[in-house]
Structure formats: C-alpha cells, structure tokens
C-alpha cells in the first residue's frame, strides 16, 4: 500500500514537470519579445530592458526554466502586471466561489448520475435507458453557456425564485449561497452528468453479465442488494476514474459558467487576465488548475485500493 502510493507519487512528478515546462514555454515561445509584449505598446526601451532583466529574460532559456520552477516550488507564482498583487494571493481571493461551484456540481452530479446509470443498466433497452442515452448525446452537444442562458431565461426570469446572477459568500449564510449557486451548478453539471451516467451504465451493465450476479440472484438476495452490493461495487473503479478525468471538463466549464452567471471566481479572473494580457497571471492560473487536476487524479488512483480489495501493491 505504502509502496504503491510512493510509486504513484513518483509517477506524478514527471507529469508535473512536463506540465510546468509546457506552461513555461507557451509564454516564452510567443512570437515577438515577451518583455515588449508584457509592458505594452507605450513603453520605452529602458522599461522593456528593465522588465527583461526583472523576469530574467536575458538568461538562457533552460536557466530561466530552472529559476522559474524553483520559484513555483516555493509557491511563488510571480506578480500580476496590472493588479499589483502576487498571483498566488489573487488566486487565493478568488478561489471560494469556484471551489463552491465545483464542489456543489460534483455532489449534485454524482448523486444523480450514479443511480440513473445503475437503473439504466439494470433495465437496459428500457425507456429510462434510452432516455438517458439520448440525454447524454444531447449533453455533449449543447454548449454550457447555452444551457446557462436557457436556465436563466426559463427559471430565474420567468419564476423569479432564484437570483439571475451573482454570488453570495458562504460566510453570509448558507441559503443565499445555495440559491445563488443552484442554477450555475445545474448548468455545469449537465455535461458532467452525461459523462458519468454513461460510464456508470456501461460499467454496471458489464458487471451484471458476470457469473457472481447470477449466483447472488440464485441465493435469493433482494435485487437492490444485487445492484448495489454486487454490480455497483464491482463497477466502482471505472466510475471513480471518470469522475476524476471529468474534472478537466469541469474546469473548462467553470470558466464559462462563471462568465454567464457573473460569479467572481477563478474563471472570471482567467478571462480578465487574458483580456488584459496579464501573462504572469494567465501562466499562474493555468499551472494552478493543471496541478489541481493532476492531484485529483492521483487521489483517484490511490482510492482504487478502497474500492477494489483485489488491488494489492
């Protein structure tokens, strides 16, 4: 178990290094002089020189990467060009709405998708199964922001039950927090739901064809027990895996959903950074999200041990 975790951690390191390298190169290999781009059009030559020295751009590229990685390892993601704050503190300020939205979406999705997938697999070919499969094809085709606007239009504006846009901090009360996040979380969950329900259905359907299911039924235990204890628990590994992999969809979706619902989170910060060409900020956010994604999938890998006792390391 411990050696497994150790090996897994070691396998994660090269991925993280390559991610860092790609993110680093993306801003350094830009056409033109990065220092000139960073200071903008109106800067003088001396200012450009100053920024170049400040960023270490006069050093050879590999050395720059080593220096930059060293800073990143100390949690130092650089300083925003326009907001006069460190990238790390900006991320810290904006993380609550994004984290709330993502967490609520994951909970909502898993609570809906797994039971639906199990039921669809149980009666596969039935109406629920067909409805779910149609829904999932639709879910992959309708863009998140279109769903968001349809919900704003159809739910928030027509009924007035839920706020149209904005965000309320969790510290200011659970109810406003929840009502502000209800529609965004629903919007964001559609594609994730489509993905997880589909994989759950496939994995459970596969498990249901196994001999031990027949044995369990022959033993006379209830159908619910067969589905939950035998089919679902044997299908757990692919389901957990796709929950982890789907986080990438979620991260892309967060940026879009926050824009539609005017939620002041990391997604909006990303867009602001891009529109103002704040390179250190863009770099920092991309790196941050990628590391989160890698770590989540590392945890997913580690969790296999809980779900499948046959896995021994």
């Amino acid at each position, binding site marked *: 178990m411990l050696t*497994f975790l150790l090996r*897994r951690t070691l*396998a994660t390191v090269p*991925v993280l290094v*390559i991610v860092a390298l*790609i*993110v680093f190169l*993306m*801003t350094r290999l*830009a056409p033109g002089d990065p220092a000139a781009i960073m200071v903008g059009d109106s800067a003088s030559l001396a200012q450009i020189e100053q920024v170049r020295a400040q960023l270490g751009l006069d050093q050879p590229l590999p050395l720059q990467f080593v220096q930059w990685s060293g800073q990143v390892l100390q949690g130092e993601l650089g300083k925003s060009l326009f907001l006069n704050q460190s990238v790390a503190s900006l991320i810290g300020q904006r993380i609550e709405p994004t984290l709330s939205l993502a967490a609520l979406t994951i909970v909502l999705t898993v609570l809906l998708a797994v039971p639906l997938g199990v039921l669809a697999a149980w009666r596969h*070919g039935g109406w629920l199964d067909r409805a779910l499969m149609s829904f999932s094809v*639709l879910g*992959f*085709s309708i*863009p*998140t*922001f*279109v769903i968001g*606007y*349809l919900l*704003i239009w159809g739910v928030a504006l027509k009924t007035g039950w839920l706020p149209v846009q904005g965000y309320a901090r969790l510290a200011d009360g659970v109810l406003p927090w929840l009502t502000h996040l209800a529609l965004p979380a629903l919007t964001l969950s559609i*594609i994730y739901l*489509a*993905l997880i329900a*589909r*994989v759950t259905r*496939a*994995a459970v*359907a596969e*498990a249901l064809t196994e001999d031990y299911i027949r044995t369990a039924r022959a033993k006379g235990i209830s159908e619910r027990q067969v589905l939950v204890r035998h089919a679902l628990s*044997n299908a757990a*590994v*692919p389901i957990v*895996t*796709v929950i982890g*992999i*789907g986080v*990438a*969809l979620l*991260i*892309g979706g967060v*940026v*879009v959903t926050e824009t*539609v619902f005017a939620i002041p989170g990391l997604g909006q910060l990303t*867009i602001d*950074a*891009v*529109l103002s*060409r704040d*390179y250190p900020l*863009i770099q920092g956010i*991309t790196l941050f*999200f*990628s590391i989160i994604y890698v770590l989540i999938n590392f945890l*997913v*890998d580690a969790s*296999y041990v809980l779900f*499948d006792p*046959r*896995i021994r390391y």
Partner: protein
Amino acid sequence: MSEPLSGLTTSQSASPVLQGGVKRGSRSLEPKAPLKGGGGAPAGRPESFTPNIESPATTAPRGVSTARRLWRNGAVRFGACVLALLVAGAAAAPWLGTIDPTLIDPASANLPPGTSAEFMTLGGDTFQHWFALGSDSLGRDLWSRMLYGARVSLAVGAGVALLALAIGILLGLAAGYFRRLDGVIMRIMDGVMAIPGILFAITLIAVWQPSLATIVIAIAVPEIPRVARLVRSVVLTIREEPYVEAAVALDTPAWKVLTRHILPNAIAPLIIQGTYVCAAAILVEAILSFLGVGMPPEIPTWGNIMAEGRTQFTQYPQSVLFPGLLLSFTVLAVNLLGDGLRDTLDPKFNKRGG
C-alpha cells in the same frame, strides 16, 4: 489497452493499478478511441466509453458495400445530411438572402425576427432588407451573420480534426514503432493531457495573436494526445503480426512498413476519432469566441454573435438563442455521425460490448 483509464499519470502499461486486477472495470472501458479526458472541451467523447450494448448495424450481410452499410445507419444519415446542408449553406451564403454580415445600421437595431425594414449603410446607401431572424444591437442582420459564422465553425472543425490527426498519427507511429522514442513522446503527451484543454487554448491564444491559424492550433494541440495514444496502441498490436515481421525481415524501410502495413489498420478508428475531435473543436471555438478570447469580435462567428447579444439577452434573446440552437444542432449532428460511424465501421468494438 486500459490506458485511457490511467488518465494522466502514465500512458504505458506500467500503471500498477491497471495491472493490479481491475480486469472487470477496465474491460468495459476498453474503447478503440481513448476518452477525451484532459481535453476539457465540453464535447467529451465518452461515446467511445460505451460498449455499445445494442450492437446494431453490424450484422449486414457480406458483399454489401461499406457506403451502403453506412447509409443504413440512421445516425450516419442524419449527421451527414445536416452537415452537407450546413456546408452548402455556408458556401452559398452570398446567394441566400444575406447582406454583408459586418454592415451596421443603428436605425434597424434589435429588430424582431421576420421584419422587413429599410437598411441604411454608414455610407448612406439604402435598400430594403428582410431580417429573417431579426438584427443585433448594431442593426446587423442575424441570419447573414449566422450563415457566414458557419464558415468559421466548419473551417475550425475541419482544420482542427485534420491537424490533430496528422500530428497525432506521426507521434503515435513514432512512439509505437521506435522503442527509444516511446517514453519521451508519451510522457509529453501525458503532460499535454494534464492541462485542461480550454485553458490551454485560452493561454495560447492570449500569448499569440488571435487568428484562424492560432485558434486551430490552440484547439488542436490538446486533442493530439488521444490520437497519438490510439495510433500507438494499434501499432503495438499490429507490429507483432506475422505479415509485419515478414515485411521487416525483407528489409522493408520503416516508413513503408508503417504506412503500408500498420497504418491502414488504424483508419476506421481514426475516422471516428476525427469526427469527435471535429465536434469538440466547433464547440470550443464557439466557447472561446463567446468568452471574448477567440476570433476578433468584428468577424462573425456563432460565439461572437452570442457574446455580443448576451448583454441584452433578457429583452432580445434572439442573438443568443438562434446561434446557440444552430451550434447545438451542428455539434449534435457531428457527434451522431461519429456514433454511427463507430457502430458501423468498428465491429470489433461492438462485439466486445455485446
């Protein structure tokens, strides 16, 4: 071949988890085309995850041509027709009751769909125009903008699919055939997959100037790893075949072995994968435009139209609804085409699921 499962940690069979005996789980997730995971584009391709239980359309009698067999599949028929209609519409845009999609007339702003009105250009010319779908806040004709916008969407979809396939094939062949390159290439692919696709595209476009070429590259790069993994897995299975060993023994040059003996085995899954990449690319392009980080705002794209219309969405929903519906419908058609192709062209996949 459980690689898609291991997500981003390792692409080789070195993954201890997957050797560890998760046989049951991984078998059901053994698609030809790996999961679109790290891509982050909303058009995931989990279609490829499903071991198609129904397994239709594969029982066609021998001797029926592939084209005929494809046409029998409803999803293929629907997807191909919608796509053909769209391509024709985009190509014939100037003759379909459109005006220059960039023409502005503040006097005819926010007209409801189906209005006929006098259009006055900034130059002072006037003419009568029928606004089939209404106009936006600057008085531009929505129908014209959507039809011209289809050109961008289709170009990006096709461009991204071709580019991702081309580079993915090259990398996959190299990684699968030349053992020494395998580790390096696949590690880099793992790294690319670990960056959520939309963020990758946003970053790249922010740094380089937004243009059609930049956008195609920015959307294509996150798609490359899945193509490369697919090709690599085909190479790894096929290279053990006797006919490949025979070709190698006869001193056939490597490129010839690869292109003539190995690559043809990957064509069906590559076409399917290419279709899904195309659908995802159309969606991501619209998202980028919508967020204001894609094509420059003066160029009509579906995302740009929606971005422009979203500030007054509550009063005049047409600028968001019509392009949104057309976009969804297009992506749906391409996804269904992919599903149909998969069911028809990839019988191995079906058998495995059934």
